[in-house]
């Protein structure tokens, strides 16, 4: 279950092209985690590194389970 701040940030991401562009610029996981925390804070949203790593892991799981 996603936290309320993560749900709020996801809504923002899918409705804000500039924010997506900024997040897409990160090429590796470590800088993505740091950058996402920073960008979320610009909108007054507090995310933890663990939450973002979980989101990354969920994406990997989804790929592995795509036939299921």
């Amino acid at each position, binding site marked *: 279950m996603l936290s309320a701040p993560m749900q709020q940030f996801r809504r923002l*991401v899918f409705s804000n092209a500039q924010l997506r562009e900024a997040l897409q610029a990160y090429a590796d996981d470590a800088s993505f985690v740091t950058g996402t925390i920073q960008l979320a804070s610009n909108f007054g949203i507090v995310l933890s590194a663990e939450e973002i790593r979980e989101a990354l892991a969920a994406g990997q799981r989804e790929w592995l389970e795509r036939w299921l």
Partner: protein
Amino acid sequence: MSAVDQVPQRYLPMRVKFGDDGATVSWCSDDGLDFDDPFFDETLLRCLRRPFNRAFRPHTPISALLDHVQRNGCRPPDAFIFHMSRCGSTLLSQMFTALPATRVISEATTIDRMLYADRALPGLSAQTQVEWLRAIILSYGASTPPFARYVVKFDAWHVERIALISQAFPEVPWVFLFRNPLEVLVSMLAHRAASTLPGVGTHLLPGVDLYTAANMRSDQYLALILSHYMKSALKQREHPRGMFVDYADLPQRALPAILAHLCLDLDESAVALMLARASRDAKHPSAEFVPDTSRKQAAASPAARQLAQELLMPTYEELRAICWRPSP
């Protein structure tokens, strides 16, 4: 899962999931990629290298897919490619990727899911399944500006679902590619695809239960699979949009006839691009294509020859009788 995720433009379905709440779709940014890899999953995997695409993927109910294709002016495909595997289908689909502004979707898992949604969701109406299938295929045709051409290559076993596909897209012409089945059998025995293992995914050979299949010799089971593919194609011999092409006539000899059948009017330079692409190995484009017919024939074991002769060659000859032939 949030049921209200917005799907931005340039997002594509990456997964279709069936559950108690019906069908849901996960989406992924196309990352500006051309989908010119031999297989859809390869390009999708490239998209997922980017951390953003793994961490932030919209999840929606299937209704959002239907809305998405209406809103985004998604175009239907120009052509479908069916095949019996190891017979030049990747070659042909890769030749289309050589053309500018051309989208080629090759063996997408998501399309497979829709083709067998009736097995995952018993009670699903045929009409709904056709709508879902149409929507998932249309969704890959979204582009601004629009693609000049859009081609979908199916997995080999999808030949058994041509009737369903034709309900979703009655206007789309298709080709079925086939090859001397002994050569295909030799290739499959040398490099067996996981999808040909009994019961993998939703696919089980009709009339053969899992116990029987698991106890069968692998060459026998593979021969039965090939027989099923070829016989499924033969059932469509009267299909008004179908064309049957033997690997032996690929790529040069049959290409003009294939393009004419698909109503694709290409100039000489475009055809030259396609043929240049054909000089590369379809599944490993960095390598040059090396003809392998003689090698495969020579590598066939006596058992494979017997299986091919008994189970496959008669159907192959039937296909040869209805396929496109060069003018004498």
